[in-house]
């Protein structure tokens, strides 16, 4: 199936209203102010000048706060709420909220607030503070963060490596990264007799509803969150944002609507980032390339609350078959902005390290990197008896190699004039997950249907997928389905996160459709109904029985009904005891490195993905291309530089480099489609994150192939290459 995005016409005309696009009568503007130290106590704040400034209505600080309680959810744990205490734990922490009649007045007045700090020395370097490392807590799946699997008779991972004929190893590092969604975190909040309404982009209306209800100590039924359009999220809008908490609380206190948005610079410090990582990997193999031992030790940065762990070592648990495996994961609390999930958390930086190391092993073995990977393909996660439900990674590599012209690659690249040209590859994997989800389907007398869920489509294409899967489940054309999401009034589920939405919502749609069609047929054959006492069936939008048929709309009209509705729920179940589930992919890229300047240009990219059934071909390709470009960005562009005192050296969109159009070549995406109905009834596994996975390594491996220079960190810069370029 393929169809253009249902919300595209609204988005190309400016009619799609995102959170801060809402303007309400009598609305005030709030401006957040942030700390200029990374560690210490706020001793005093002088707000007199700000309060006296034109248009200012209120100035909130930790000395005169808006009361907010800390929300806690099973998935995210505690969510930090601003202005509740005077301790500063990172540079750029929100410390005040100025509310005024206009945006300019709030912004200008915020510059008049004076803060006195008792400053303490800050710890901001991951590499410089490894002595503070703590064992990471178990992952969300309950897996311990460190584990060892040894073959019978092997005493230790050290022994396994020592007895391996070929051993490679290295220390890899990846920087702090920011989601940098184009929409800064923002909110418009107002209160009326029905309670609180908040317009604020997030990854699940029901998640934000629960956070705000807990923070404001009101019943969730009195909180209405509205965000059908979300300007990008990538994990950075899973938690409710600072402007949403503050706008909601200030609106309640002031009795007027309040709009608040973070500045772009504040997004880098007052939301949360992907942690920095250090990873040590050692691979031991036989001379034929068969892995004997894998060791992967990781450290990641964290804020002082240790609110998130970037589980990079987990990559080595799933990628390759090895009789001996030791992984560990440590976390280092620092005075840095908070850390959180970012597109392929763990897998993205973890695969950079592991897939670079695999390339190094291929070089040491003088073996084709694809052959090495195929030889060691995993059957399931290490230490688990549950094999992958469906795995066609070998096909991905075979098809990819053929289309990409891999056979023309030489171990030392090739030269075209002043350009050194290399090819690289890497494996991509991302777990296939789904979350408990409820959807509602409403059949209407005009022969159309509504499909509703409280989740979000921050560019993923979920809205269009809902129309396609709703159409399939109701045996109707997709033009007769109106998909609806982004309101807390809709049933909970379909959160944008973990590449889960299609499998989660799709499964719930199957259940809801079954329930509503059952209800329809039972109404049809009830006493006094058009098919009273008859056996009826349903197909193609019609109820059939006794040799005649009616559309469901005609039937509803005959019954005097406008609509009938049913909800359906779906959740992971027995399948989890039978198989392990993952998507797979083979990433390819070609780079051109200028022999005199060290400039790296990606010239071609191909990704071949085994992600089960693809529901909407066009949007799926777009999302995977976007993910692959994120891999290029990680490899060559982005990285947050945190200085010793905690300031960000490049915390804006001029300094935090992202690829622009001219950086990106044509990209090819292909699918190996084997619906995975062992995982869910739709057969689709997630594709939101796997596009990122492995691509940074594929770029680094291509750079090595072109130049002979192995760079074990990202982003790879000209300075990393200049010295080693062949003369």
């Amino acid at each position, binding site marked *: 199936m393929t169809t253009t995005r249902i919300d*595209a016409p*609204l*988005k*190309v*005309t*400016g009619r799609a209203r*995102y959170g*801060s*696009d809402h*303007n309400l009568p009598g609305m005030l503007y709030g401006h957040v102010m*942030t700390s*200029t*130290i990374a560690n210490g106590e706020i*001793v005093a704040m002088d707000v007199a000048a700000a309060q*006296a*400034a*034109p248009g200012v209505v209120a100035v909130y600080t930790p000395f005169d706060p808006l009361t907010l309680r800390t929300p806690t959810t099973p998935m995210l744990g505690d969510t930090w709420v601003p202005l509740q205490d005077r301790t500063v734990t990172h540079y*750029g922490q929100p410390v*005040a909220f*100025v509310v005024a009649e*206009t945006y300019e007045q709030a*912004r*200008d*007045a*915020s*510059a008049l607030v004076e*803060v*006195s700090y*008792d400053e303490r020395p800050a710890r901001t370097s991951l590499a410089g503070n490894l002595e503070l490392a703590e064992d990471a807590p178990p992952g969300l799946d309950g897996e311990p963060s460190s584990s060892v699997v040894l073959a019978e008779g092997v005493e230790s991972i050290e022994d396994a490596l020592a007895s391996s004929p070929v051993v490679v190893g290295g220390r890899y590092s990846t920087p702090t990264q920011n*989601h940098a*969604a*184009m*929409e*800064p975190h923002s909110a418009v909040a107002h209160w009326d007799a029905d309670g609180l309404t908040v317009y604020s982009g997030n990854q699940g209306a029901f998640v934000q509803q629960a956070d705000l209800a807990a923070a404001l100590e009101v019943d969730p039924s009195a909180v209405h969150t509205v965000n059908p359009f979300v*300007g*990008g999220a990538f994990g950075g809008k899973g938690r409710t944002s600072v402007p949403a908490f503050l706008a909601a609380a200030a609106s309640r206190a002031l009795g007027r609507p309040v709009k608040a948005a973070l*500045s*772009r*610079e504040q997004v880098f*410090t007052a939301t949360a980032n992907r942690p920095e990582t250090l990873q040590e990997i050692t691979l031991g193999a036989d001379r034929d390339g068969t892995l004997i031992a894998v060791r992967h030790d990781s450290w990641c940065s964290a804020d002082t609350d240790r609110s998130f762990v970037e589980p990079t070592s987990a990559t080595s648990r799933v990628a390759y078959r090895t009789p001996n495996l030791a992984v560990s994961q440590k976390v280092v609390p620092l005075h840095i902005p908070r850390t959180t999930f970012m597109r392929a958390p763990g897998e993205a930086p973890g695969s950079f390290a592991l897939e670079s190391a695999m390339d190094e092993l291929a070089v040491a073995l003088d073996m084709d990197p694809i052959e090495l990977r195929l030889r060691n393909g995993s059957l399931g996660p290490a230490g688990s008896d549950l094999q992958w439900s469906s795995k066609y990674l070998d096909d991905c590599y075979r098809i990819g190699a053929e289309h990409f012209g891999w056979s023309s690659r030489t171990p030392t690249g090739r030269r075209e004039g002043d350009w050194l040209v290399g090819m690289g590859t890497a494996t991509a994997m991302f777990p296939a997950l789904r979350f408990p989800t409820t959807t509602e389907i409403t059949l209407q007398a005009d022969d159309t249907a509504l499909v509703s869920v409280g989740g979000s489509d*921050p*560019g*993923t*294409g979920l809205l269009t997928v809902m129309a396609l899967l709703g159409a399939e489940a109701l045996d109707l054309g997709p033009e007769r389905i109106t998909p609806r999401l982004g309101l807390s009034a809709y049933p909970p589920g379909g959160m944008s996160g973990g590449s889960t939405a299609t499998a989660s919502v799709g499964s719930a749609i199957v259940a809801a459709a079954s329930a509503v069609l059952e209800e329809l047929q039972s109404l049809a054959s009830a006493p006094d109904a058009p098919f009273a006492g008859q056996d009826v069936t349903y197909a193609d939008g019609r109820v059939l029985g006794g040799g005649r048929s009616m559309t469901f709309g005609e039937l509803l009209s005959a019954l005097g009904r406008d609509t009938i509705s049913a909800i359906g729920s779906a959740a992971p179940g027995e399948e989890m005891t039978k198989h392990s589930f993952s998507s797979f992919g083979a990433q390819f890229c070609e780079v051109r490195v200028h022999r005199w300047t060290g400039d790296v240009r990606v010239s071609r990219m191909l990704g071949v993905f085994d992600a089960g059934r693809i529901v909407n071909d066009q*949007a799926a390709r*777009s999302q995977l291309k*976007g993910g692959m*470009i*994120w891999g290029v960005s990680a490899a060559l562009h982005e990285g947050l530089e945190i200085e010793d005192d905690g*300031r*960000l050296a490049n915390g*804006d*969109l*001029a*300094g935090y480099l992202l690829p*622009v*159009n*001219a*950086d*990106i070549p044509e990209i090819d995406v292909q699918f190996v489609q084997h619906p995975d109905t062992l995982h869910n009834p739709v057969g689709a596994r997630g594709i939101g994150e796997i596009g990122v996975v492995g691509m940074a390594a594929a770029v680094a491996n291509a750079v090595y192939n072109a130049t002979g220079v192995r760079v074990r960190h990202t982003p790879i810069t000209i300075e990393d290459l200049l010295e080693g370029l062949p003369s």
Partner: protein
Amino acid sequence: MIIRFPVYGLTSQHPPMPHHRLGGHAARKRIPVDISLEVNGRTENLDVEPGVTLLDALRERLDVTGPKKGCDRGQCGACTVHVGGRPVLSCLTLVATVREPVTTVDGLATGDALHPVQQAFVDQDALQCGFCTSGQIMSAVAAVEQDVDDVREFMSGNLCRCSAYPNIVAAIEQVRRADAVV
């Protein structure tokens, strides 16, 4: 050690400024400016302070919310509009300086008929989250009108974090092909 300096709320990346540099700020006399502005074919009258940007005037005074604030620094391009037919960054343009008609993405379609560039963005899936799209489209319209040699280079002032870049290029090429046929 106790240090004492103002929080610098506007651009947190700047070094702290000495207190006296900001002291006169609140006391500064504010002189509103009367402005008459043509936006998407309508004449709008505004009474704003001189420091108000075209972007904030459009979004917060006129409820024209197609142009987006992605950075407020001219770094992302999401606020791109046309002034007198030329693409400009509305976040770096003071509204009081605007003399020529303003066109935003909201005013590009003719009734229900999408502009060919808008239609091409739909056809080629040249958007995902859609937040940068209004700026991308205004730059893309300029790229088509100016018949630029290097589309990728021309479009590089508009960031797209969803990274729809190849599809944006395809959308522009679709319009250029159609124009070539005509």
